[in-house]
Each structure stands twice: as structure tokens, then as C-alpha cells.
């Protein structure tokens, strides 16, 4: 069900693209082993290197390299790739229009046993309010494989919110075509729209079974690119179903739920409910426990769907 680890794909695509494009460099801050980029150092010793545990410096070095035409990928765990270097992202990367790709791994509750300090509940909120930066969160191996070259070709800063381990495949159709700036409709439906991102897409797929049994025809749309959000897709679906649930692995403040609410509030006010971390910090635990604790399971999605439909 799950194909290759996402970090394996990250490394594979970089290995290929770095061979074709000398501008790509990969910089780590002592988490190359975790993020799967260690192997690149053997193949491209001058273009894949570590700056030590110094994320702010890493962001600044990357910005400087970008001004010379390079395309740097910098990586850490999500909190240290975003909130720790927020000002560097804002000034040296986004304001200065530097083409840096920022990769954060273990988003939200997927930091598991590393606990609260490593559990970013706010990274999307932090980055989303900085102008001139794209935020992309992969769903599965195939989508990420297609996304990487588009991210490399896009001339500007991108934040990749990367779950790094193996995860169930969602996009299995042989003709699946990914577009970085277009939401992916996974299933059409008429009663409710579930906008989901990251690991919550897999959770939504689980919920679909129960929803079907309940006779609810749900539309499922993956908003993989949280910024700029595909406004047309959000509006069109909300107009059709008139009830919305948003599911994300992030604080319900500042993330995809907020982004969808902003669009709907301005364009077509629609009853909606947000599934995600309800303005709390993280804690240690394994994923199934954390999903229950933070009310982020398929069951919670089903309940939210029932609620919004009842309020239509």
C-alpha cells in the first residue's frame, strides 16, 4: 500500500536533478540522516554539505547562494525550518526574492516521541503570512515524485512540509498528473466537501468508507499547495456541496483551515468545520495515540461531516 519513503524520493529526485542541473545544492543542519540527504554527499561532495546545528546560518547561506543563481534546498525538522528561522525566511529569502527551497520534516504530530519542542503546530501559519513564498505539503510518494521537478523549476521560494516516512499511496491512477498550483480532486461528491492536506488525506480516505455507509456522498479535494491556495477549486466545490470540512495536521489557527475560511468568507460563506490541532502544543506519543488525543482520526472527520451537513 505504501511505496517508498518520502525522504527516499526526495533523495532520488535530487540525485537525478543534480546531475542535470549544476545549480542545485543541498544544505543540511545536522539532520541529513533523518531527512535522507546523506547519500548525496558521496555523489556531489561540493554541492551537498552540512553547516552544523545552525539553521539561521543555513538559511542565510542559501539566500546568498541563490543570489548567485544557485537553487539551494535547505532542510531541518519543521519547527527549526520555519519558526526558528522566521526572520531569515522573511528578509533574506522572501523579501530578497531568493530562490531557496525550504524543507521541514516531521510536520505536526508526526514528530511523535520527539514531543512538544519538535512538534510544529504553527509552521504553516508562520510561513503563510510571509509574502512571496509557496507552501506545498506532499500526500504520497507518486505526488511528491511529480512535485519535486515542478518545485525545482518554479523560480521562487517554496516551503515543503514533508512527512518523511512511508505512507499509504493515494494517487495510484496510471494517468495521474500533478500540478503544483491546482488542487487535486480525489473524489467527486455532492453532499459535503472535505479539503485535506498531508497525512489527513489518508485519514479522509478511511473516513470515506463510513460516509458511504451513512449514505453521504463526499467530495474530497487535496489542497497540497496551501499557498497560493487554489481559490477556484475551493469556491466551486463549496458552491456545489454547501458544507465544508477541512482536515490538516496543524493548528486549526493559521493553517489550511484558516486559508479555506478566508476564501469562503470572502467569496461564498459556507458552513465549515476544521479538523486539526485545536490550539494546543504537542506532546510525546506514538501517532495513533496522538491522532486520538488531538481528535484527528477518520472518526473525527465523519463526526465533523455530519455536523456541517446538519447545519446546512
Amino acid at each position: 500500500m505504501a511505496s517508498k519513503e518520502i525522504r527516499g524520493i526526495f533523495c532520488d529526485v535530487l540525485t537525478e536533478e543534480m546531475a542535470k542541473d549544476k545549480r542545485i545544492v543541498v544544505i543540511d543542519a545536522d539532520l541529513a540522516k533523518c531527512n535522507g540527504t546523506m547519500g548525496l554527499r558521496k555523489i556531489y561532495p561540493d554541492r551537498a554539505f552540512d553547516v552544523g546545528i545552525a539553521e539561521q546560518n543555513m538559511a542565510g547561506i542559501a539566500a546568498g547562494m541563490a543570489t548567485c543563481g544557485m537553487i539551494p534546498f535547505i532542510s531541518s525538522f519543521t519547527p527549526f525550518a520555519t519558526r526558528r528561522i522566521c526572520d531569515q525566511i522573511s528578509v533574506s529569502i522572501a523579501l530578497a526574492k531568493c530562490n531557496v527551497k525550504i524543507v521541514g520534516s516531521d510536520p505536526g504530530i508526526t514528530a511523535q516521541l520527539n514531543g512538544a519542542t519538535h512538534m510544529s503546530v504553527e509552521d504553516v501559519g508562520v510561513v503563510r503570512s510571509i509574502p512571496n513564498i509557496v507552501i506545498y505539503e506532499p500526500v504520497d510518494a507518486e505526488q511528491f515524485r511529480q512535485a519535486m521537478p515542478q518545485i525545482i523549476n518554479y523560480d521562487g521560494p517554496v516551503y515543503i512540509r514533508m512527512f518523511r516516512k512511508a505512507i499509504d499511496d493515494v494517487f495510484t491512477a496510471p494517468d495521474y498528473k500533478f500540478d503544483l498550483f491546482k488542487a487535486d480532486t480525489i473524489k467527486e461528491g455532492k453532499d459535503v466537501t472535505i479539503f485535506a492536506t498531508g497525512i489527513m488525506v489518508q485519514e479522509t480516505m478511511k473516513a470515506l468508507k463510513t460516509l458511504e455507509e451513512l449514505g453521504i456522498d463526499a467530495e474530497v479535494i487535496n489542497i497540497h499547495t496551501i499557498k497560493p491556495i487554489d481559490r477556484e477549486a475551493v469556491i466551486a466545490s463549496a458552491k456545489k456541496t454547501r458544507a465544508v470540512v477541512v482536515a490538516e495536521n496543524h493548528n486549526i489557527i493559521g493553517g489550511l483551515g484558516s486559508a479555506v475560511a478566508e476564501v469562503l468568507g470572502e467569496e461564498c460563506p459556507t458552513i465549515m468545520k476544521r479538523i486539526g490541532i485545536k490550539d494546543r502544543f504537542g506532546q510525546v506519543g506514538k501517532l495513533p495515540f496522538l491522532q486520538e488525543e488531538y481528535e484527528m482520526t477518520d472518526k473525527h472527520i465523519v463526526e465533523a461531516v455530519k455536523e456541517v451537513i446538519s447545519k446546512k
Partner: protein
Amino acid sequence: MGTAELRNIAKQIRYYTTDEIATLGVGHIGGSLSIADLLAVLYFKEMNVDPKNPNMENRDRLVVSKGHAGPAVYAALALKGYFPMEELKTLNVEGTNLPSHCDRTLTPGIDMTAGSLGQGISAAVGMAKASKILDNGARVYCIIGDGESQEGQVWEACMSAVQLKLDNLIVFMDYNKMQIDGTTEEIMSVANPAERFKAFGFNVYEIDGHDIDAIVASIDGAKQVKDKPTMVVLNTVKGKGISFVENALVDCHSMNFNAEQKAAALEELK
């Protein structure tokens, strides 16, 4: 407490730290074991603390800035009597008060939340400055990693500790020469740390971090110095005390333990 007793405490800290991590099956064993001797001296000889009153006013404080060494600190705290030894089995278990990284809101005896490297030492500077203003005679101890010292914030904190003349601050650098991706030499050198901290204006000692007497002597020395913070560079072995952990070198940062490895490790620490 004398050297022999402190040595015995350090041994127990190693034993229970390993038991915590191996019972769970995974954890930051390397950087926990490297500071066991220091923790024994701090909690069982130097620090003015009261396990029955963890928030005692005017107590000495310890900031474990390399917050991933939580398991070793918890073992020391339990041995000191802050909470029952049994609780050590709850490391990282759902709803625990003993998470991977030190959290002052969860664990009695933990003075500062840490885990995002580089931040704890600044908090230690703040605590030392507060003690100066309050004139309460409290001392502040802080433990930083050598990899952690690649964070710019560590050096910002060092500058301020010197500028503020914080002679009540004693920082220990766990110079085990390893981080996650490799040795500190390979990744980002912090070589000659003693010289670097001297240049910043610290009173500096460089010692064997597993030598109880040397640790005690460095703290005694620090107490004699006026108007300067002290930095003690501890030459340590990451994973100290368990041969297969030590031999894993850089890979001992975080390790998995199966039942056999757990038994072998605990046997060696008896």
C-alpha cells in the same frame, strides 16, 4: 558526599537512564550517558535544591540546554527523590511527565524547557542575572552540547554572560565530539572550545568529564572567581559506560534497544 559515593551515584544514573530508554526501546542514549558524572556531582554535592520542594525560592538551578539528555536528568532527579523511581518507566509513554526533551511544566525539578538547541543557555543567563538582582546567592548551572554550540544563540548568550559579569553562572560543554550527521570535526568544527570561550572572556577549565574530582575542583575554582562566568569544557565519551553503545560512535546519538541489548547493557552497568 565523597568521590567514591559520587562515582556510585553516577553509575546508578547510567543504569537507570539505560533502563528507561531500553524499556521504551529507543532514545537518546549517547548524550545522556556522557553527562552522568556531571549530574551526580551537581545533584548530590553542589546544588542547593530540595526534592521535597522543587520550586524552593533561591534554589540553585540547572538548565539542560541539550534538552535531549532528559532521560539522564530524570534518573538523577528520581535518585535524588523528586519522584518515585517507578516513574522512570514512563519515559515517553502516553501522558507521561517524562518526555524526550526536558519540560519545566511537566517534571518536578526541571528548571527550564529545552529541546530546540541553543536556547537554554540564554535562559540560564537570564536566571543568573535575576539571581544577581535578587541578590539571593543562587548559582545557575547549564549544560550545552558541542554540536549545540554551532547555534549562533550560544555565542550570543556567552557574550551577554561575560558582559553582565555573571560569576554565578557555570556552563558545562559536553565535548563528546559527536553530533547526528557525524563528528563535530566533520560537520562543523568547534575545535579548541576552551580557547574560544577564553577569548570571549570566560573563566575556563578543560577537564576529563568523567573524572568526579576534576568536576568538583572546577566548580570550586569557579566559586573563587569574581565578575566572570565559568565555562567547563568536559572531554567526554558519547555513550560512556556501555561498550557497544560507545563503539557505535556517531550512531549512538539515538539507538534502538531489543531485549537482548537491554540485558547486556544493564549487565555492564551493574
